[in-house]
């Protein structure tokens, strides 16, 4: 099963990167949002440092939302999704592959981008490992739930706003834990419980989100 799954991921990466700038837009957006915050808060070092975790997480959520609509959209619009769902590969695997490509083209790139953004927000180097680990779970979780949201809104006339309204509430637990983990790291408090809870959220979403999205896509195909 892994061959076909990675064929889908590899094709998504190749086609997206083949279109040039599109692949990196998430990263630039992320760094820009962080810099806008840093600039808008002026030179108040203490204020920026205190808000740093919140700013990083807000920027990560916004940049992931930016590309969610396109998780299935291109394959849906050109009929490839139909043929994929009519292949012997299970819909769960197809959806999981799509979510993995979304993460590789967005969330995964935010980890190095966060390293670039950290000095802008006066985040000390000691807090970086925790921030990165927490962002790793957070971005994976966002791609899973975002892929579910994109599946639910596929074919609707204006999916953008609907998608945000569906995905953001689902994302709040991860956002809370991520913010708390980062705050604890900055205050040099124990971070383990927050990271473990983040990992647990991710592991719960890992089988469930693709399963729900698969049902949604199959139903969508059979009713269109």
């Amino acid at each position: 099963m892994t061959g076909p799954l990675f064929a889908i991921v590899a094709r998504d990466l190749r086609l997206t990167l083949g279109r040039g700038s599109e692949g990196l837009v998430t990263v630039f957006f992320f760094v820009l949002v962080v810099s806008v915050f840093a600039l808008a808060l002026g030179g108040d070092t203490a204020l920026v440092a205190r808000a740093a975790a919140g700013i990083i997480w807000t920027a990560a959520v916004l940049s992931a939302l930016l590309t969610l609509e396109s998780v299935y959209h291109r394959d849906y619009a050109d009929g490839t999704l139909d043929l994929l769902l009519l292949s012997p590969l299970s819909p769960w695997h197809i959806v999981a592959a799509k979510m993995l490509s979304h993460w590789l083209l967005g969330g995964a790139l935010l980890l190095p981008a966060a390293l670039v953004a950290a000095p802008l927000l006066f985040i000390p180097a000691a807090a970086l490992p925790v921030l990165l680990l927490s962002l790793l779970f957070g971005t994976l979780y966002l791609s899973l739930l975002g892929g579910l949201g994109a599946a639910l809104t596929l074919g609707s006339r204006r999916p953008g706003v609907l998608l945000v309204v569906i995905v953001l509430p689902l994302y709040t637990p991860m956002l809370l834990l991520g913010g708390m983990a980062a705050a604890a790291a900055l205050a040099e408090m124990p971070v383990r419980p927050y990271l473990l809870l983040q990992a647990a959220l991710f592991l719960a979403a890992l089988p469930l989100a693709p399963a729900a999205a698969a049902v949604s896509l199959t139903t969508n195909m059979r009713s269109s």
Partner: protein
Amino acid sequence: MAKRLFSSTLSFADVACIRGNRLLFQNFSASLAAGGVLRLAGANGAGKTSLLRIVARALPHAAGRILWDGVNILENENIAHNARFAFLPADDRDLKLLETARENLHFWAVLWCIENSAAAIDAALAAMGLSSLADTPVRVFSAGQKRRLSLARIILKQCPLWLLDEPFNALDDAAIDLLSQAMAAHLAAGGMVMMATHHHPDIKNMQTAHLAAAQVAA
């Protein structure tokens, strides 16, 4: 005499289809043995595409049974059914324009777990007369060349049942000959073909079913 690869049978019993609130057809019955061809005819909107999609389970049926080797495929949610058919949509939008012909086929060869894929891809391209365009991006293909590539994908899948929606669209005479040869080879191997077309291809033992609402067909 070609080697017989497939020996499955397909039969329809009183299949009906409703789209929206409209009854497209009902009491559709037909049967196909290994090597059989069923041409679906009927006016635009009679439900030819819908019937093909019902066989692929991409559309719900309103009533009836479709038996594959005697087993109703409409009741058991068995993903293995998807390995039995190759589906040709009426348009060729699903080809990725940025990829070459070979890359397009390679993706599906991996997805379908085709053994010996490089040789199989070359054979499928050759069968539709696309060998010289194998490494050309599909974005510069003409409508007929795209159709040939979609048909090469059907050949590549090496499965018992071909579900073809308007296979002759945009094809020139040479391509129609190539498709007829490919179809003959598929049938000689024991395969089955269901196609929706207004053409009258010259194929031995072809059955034609006329789809129309509230009428017993075939």
